[in-house]
């Protein structure tokens, strides 16, 4: 019940952010996108799926994430009604929810890889947005583009801290779980 309520709250917050997304890419990409993903994640967390779906669900989540990483998708979500609606459907149901469904059955190595990859991609986006000599999004100003780039870097640093501190002190849920889930994609 609390889960569904928080999912709805996240989705509502994402909708409330809509008036600001056209003017500020940071609100669009680093506030609204994560809220939509969180809505889907909360919606699906705790639900069980057959293990054979783990792989496909992860691929769906990664593909959705990759498509929304493209600057042209961010532009299209502002310029095109179809893309605008797709944003509110695919980020929760194509990214957040599949991720929540497959995450419990993913082995620790693959998890670590995905975390490292997300930090790496955030840094890459930061690199691109802060230093591109061209405007990446038609809908946003160059200054905002740089702010978004710095936002990506901060997000990367925050995720690194959140993920690394337990590893440094040896309090990882993965270790407890490892015995139960011997299966690991690369193992």
């Amino acid at each position, binding site marked *: 019940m609390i889960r569904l309520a928080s999912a709805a709250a996240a989705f509502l917050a994402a909708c409330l952010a809509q008036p600001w997304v056209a003017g500020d890419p940071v609100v669009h990409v680093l506030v609204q996108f994560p809220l939509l993903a969180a809505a889907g994640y909360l919606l699906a967390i705790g639900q069980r799926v057959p293990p054979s779906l783990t792989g496909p669900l992860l691929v769906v989540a990664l593909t959705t994430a990759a498509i929304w990483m493209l600057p042209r998708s961010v532009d299209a979500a502002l310029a095109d009604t179809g893309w605008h609606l797709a944003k509110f459907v695919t980020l929760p149901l194509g990214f957040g929810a599949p991720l929540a469904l497959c995450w419990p059955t993913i082995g*620790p190595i693959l998890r670590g*890889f995905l975390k*490292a990859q997300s930090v790496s991609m955030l*840094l890459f986006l930061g*690199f*691109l947005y802060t230093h*591109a000599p061209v405007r990446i999004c038609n809908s946003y100003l160059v200054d905002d583009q740089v702010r978004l780039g710095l936002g990506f870097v901060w997000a990367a640093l925050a995720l690194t801290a959140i993920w690394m501190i337990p590893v440094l002190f040896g309090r990882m849920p993965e270790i407890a779980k490892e015995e139960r889930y011997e299966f690991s994609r690369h193992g």
Partner: protein
Amino acid sequence: MTTASIGNETAIASTQAPVVKLTMLLSGVVFLLMMVFGLIMRAAQGGLIELDPEFFYLLLTAHGAGMVGSAALSGAAILWYFSARYLDLRGGIYLGFLGLFLLGVVLILGSIFVGGYGGAWTFLFPLPALSGGLWEAGAAVAFCLGYVAIGVGFLLYYLELGLKISARYRGLLGGLGWRYLFGGSDADLPPPTIIAASSVLVFNTIGIVFGAAVLAASIVNLLFPSFAVDPLLAKNAIYFFGHVFINATIYMAITAVYEILPTYTGRPWKTTRVFVGAWAAVVIFVQAVYFHHLLQDVNMPAWTLAVGQIVSYASGIPLIGVTVFSLAVYIKGSGLKWDLPVSLLTLGVIGWGVGVIPAIVDGMVAVNKLMHNTQWVPGHFHTYLLLGEVAMAFGFAAWLVRDAARQTMSGLDKLVFRAYVLGGAGFTLIFLWSGASSIPRRWAVHYEDWQFQSQLASVFALVVILATTVLVLRYAIGLLRRSP
């Protein structure tokens, strides 16, 4: 799943041995092939053979990427082998790492010898994109993807090590020994190999994450040229990643010394506060030292150059000091029998220590302005790789196939070892001499005035190659003899 019981120092991780042995054979063969490439380049610079300059740069690229790659591969094999004495490492992860590594090698070799990519192993922006028609963007993309595959492989490798260390030694701080360093008790203190493994995995994972980011940016730039990358930022990221990665090779290989030497001296290599502190210095400083690659970039803020110079001293010296000193103490009076493995390992430590001296000299801003683009720099890294990491790798390989019944060096062993030392020292000294006489590096064609040095270097290179051939053959025969 290994059967080695966790924490039992005497248990040998036998199930990891076959694949490690195979890796060492692979590395040995690649080392040899890359040495031949090196000889061809030196001979061409010496005017001894005719070589199309375009082909020279293909060889230069392959030699750089191949040597860094096989140094990393052999280092990783050594670290895995010995870490498995303390940790329940999964062989499947290692196979995944090896598979991705080989995929990377195929992509890199294909991009060079099929695609014609000759933009050097450092893929510095914007060279991969501006080939002047020598190679297509696709070749440079394949080269970058090859690196990505190798990076992903290493990431899996380090994640497995990190997970197991974190679980066994109460977090990475335990594995690094920092809990002990900062006043904790020495209960459950990790052995030197685990300290090294934890340190390397921390800084090399950070390096790989940055490397992946800059590789992605380079690939985007190659596919979409309007996305020009900021050259200075790219250079920073590439040298951060590259410096950390090449340093990691030797920091992984050194575990062979920590593990093998005690079996000769009968004195275990102990984890002391000084030892942990020296490794802590490595973890921190190895990440800040790359600035000394950018001393010639006038746009860099002055403080970074100062950091580059100061950290050049702070990064390697404590650990090298501790390792060389400990080695001397352990060996002294132990009645050690000098056979080939232990000789090569000792050479590796000495070569590593000596090889850092020219780096520190070059790390001084004033010297760097004159020396950075001369052969002084290859002189430095050939010393600590050829006489350092590679010597350790061959020492480890020789130890894997050692004949327990023999405790001394055969006549052939002595000859091979002396030839390797003499050839390697002569070869690297000529680089240093050439650098001191301002002969530039990375030039395909040398003026006649410079050719004598290259000719002499070719002779020494030939001696090294002959010695290495025997080392590789001796190892291969040893493997055959042992496996029924």
